[in-house]
């Protein structure tokens, strides 16, 4: 039987492909407890690959009955990297979480699991762990629990009562693509049916930090268009997903190797479109228009610049008269800088110099061709396009 160090190595390793971001939860703080998830701050730890690991991310067990072809825990994974089968006891996991939290390594727990015997059986163990944390050890930090495909309604509710956020991995954008990668799970019954329970739970006050999902990119023959259609549907009011994550499918190899940045460019473009929909409130139609005839997002250019070029009649925008929404459409201007510009204008401060824009946080190189400051247009769009071609 492996000790806690070995278990942590095996079950941490098996969970590293799951994505999550630590976040604040609107759940009220319980005085006298350990930790707090109310206030936001900087994440507590990052890896040399640039990913945040502010949550202790582990599996309860790496035993799994499913045969997903992209997953390290799959029954079809015949490579030697498949580790010894092991499991955490709920008590062990609860103590480990508190120990890391007190040392200021983490902000909370991200608990996932392979499907050992059945989804419901595994959900019970996840629930027991969360219950120990919340009620025995008075842990008030952030908890993100992974919902296993095919979980029952009651089991899901019990977990949702204790977690700040839950997530269920959709993995592929539709049933056809899903079936290309897994034969033991049913897209409609195990994924969509369970997902449909989440909005009601959130409305009744459970899972205060909402629910998320994740796609594995490149595991099947799916196109970006198929992914974006699924993503936009899940951001609709009916589904109301808080976030959706994208993870490039990596080959299961004995000796992992570094890839060039281009290898992850597709994932990066999907994240950019996701932000344009979620934060910048671009419409699904204009975002889908970025996709080319073969159904993929062109990798060469930032989608926001592509959309700005396609709507050249809208530019240049007058920096001192534009609304928040107009400013958000300008490449190089984000939520923070747009808000600062509006706040300054409300205090009677107008922008006259590029230098002011720079201190506000605007990325001048990208923004100037689309802005009018006073009577001056900084660079015409035609000039900009010529400059880009020359570059």
């Amino acid at each position: 039987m492996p000790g806690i160090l070995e278990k942590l190595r095996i079950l941490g390793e098996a969970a590293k492909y799951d994505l999550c971001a630590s976040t604040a939860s609107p759940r009220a703080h319980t005085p006298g407890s350990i930790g707090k998830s109310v206030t936001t701050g900087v994440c507590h730890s990052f890896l040399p690959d640039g990913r945040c690991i502010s949550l202790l991310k582990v599996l309860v067990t790496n035993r799994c009955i499913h045969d997903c072809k992209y997953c390290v825990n799959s029954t079809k994974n015949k490579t030697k990297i498949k580790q010894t089968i092991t499991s955490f006891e709920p008590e062990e996991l609860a103590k480990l979480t508190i120990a890391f939290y007190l040392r200021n390594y983490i902000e909370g727990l991200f608990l996932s699991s392979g499907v050992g015997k059945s989804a419901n059986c595994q959900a019970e163990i996840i629930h027991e762990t969360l219950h120990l944390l919340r009620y025995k050890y008075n842990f008030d930090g952030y908890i993100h629990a992974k919902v296993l495909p095919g979980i029952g309604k009651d089991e899901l509710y019990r977990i949702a009562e204790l977690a700040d956020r839950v997530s269920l991995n959709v993995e592929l954008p539709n049933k056809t693509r899903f079936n290309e990668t897994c034969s033991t799970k049913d897209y409609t019954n195990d994924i969509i049916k369970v997902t449909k329970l989440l909005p009601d739970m959130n409305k009744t006050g459970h899972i205060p930090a909402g629910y998320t999902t994740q796609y594995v990119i490149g595991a099947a023959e799916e196109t970006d268009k198929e992914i974006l259609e699924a993503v936009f549907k899940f951001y609709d009011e009916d589904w109301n997903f808080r976030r959706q994550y994208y993870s490039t499918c990596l080959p299961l190899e004995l000796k992992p190797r570094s890839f060039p940045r281009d290898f992850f460019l597709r994932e990066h473009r999907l994240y950019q479109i996701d932000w344009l929909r979620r934060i910048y409130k671009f419409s699904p139609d204009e975002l889908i228009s970025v996709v080319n005839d073969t159904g993929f997002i062109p990798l060469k250019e930032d989608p926001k610049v592509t959309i700005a070029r396609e709507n050249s009649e809208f530019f240049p925008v007058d920096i001192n008269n534009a609304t928040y929404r107009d400013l958000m459409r300008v490449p190089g201007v984000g939520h923070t800088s747009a808000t600062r510009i509006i706040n300054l204008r409300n205090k009677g401060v107008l922008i006259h110099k590029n230098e002011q824009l720079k201190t506000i946080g605007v990325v001048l190189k990208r923004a100037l061709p689309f802005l009018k400051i006073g009577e001056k247009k900084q660079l015409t769009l035609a000039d900009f396009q010529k400059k880009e071609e020359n570059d």
Partner: protein
Amino acid sequence: MSWVCNLSASEYVEAAKYHKDTTVDFIEKALLLMKSQPYEITTGCSVFGKQIKKRANQVLREIHLLSAYLRLQPYQEMILVGSCKPEHNSVYFIAKTIAKRFDQFIIVIFSSSDFAVVSNRRDIPHFPNFSGSSREDIINSVRDFAARNITQKLPEDLILDEGDLLWEKYYETQFLEQRLNPKLFHKFIPKYAIEKAEMKIEGKFLKKIEHQSKKECSTLDSFL
């Protein structure tokens, strides 16, 4: 003082006071500017306004980063002890920020020249002046004080002696070699923060994999 990103002129001046280079003369001039032309501080559009904003941001950034990245050592007497090397006079604010998360604990933070003892516990309105010739002495006097004043104890098995070793192992397992990107890593944890927050484990691991980042292939063709 508020620690949000978009501050008012008075908040910028307040934060700039704790900068290592700030003098009484600087503070007086800053207060004058704040009254006459506060927007010069918030937008940084004049030389002095920009200087105030820059100093304030440096102090706030230090508090923000160090309170997240410094590591703590728990003690049974409900004490968490940490150590860092802040450049500015921010050790008290770092301890205050950490105390927000641990309102049942006494937080002790050491810097190279100073230390702060902070708690949000309501049953301890005031601390005595802790002193000692070494860090150990100070920690012991805080432990004595806590033992006398706090009945609650942290269960021993939650302290987990090998906690740092477990974190080291865990940290290594989470790394995805295929995505190695030290540039992105340093965007979040700047090199100086690793040193100032005394992040030994992260620093050690980074050194171990440094040679791999040099071998990283640069084009998609070389991968294929």
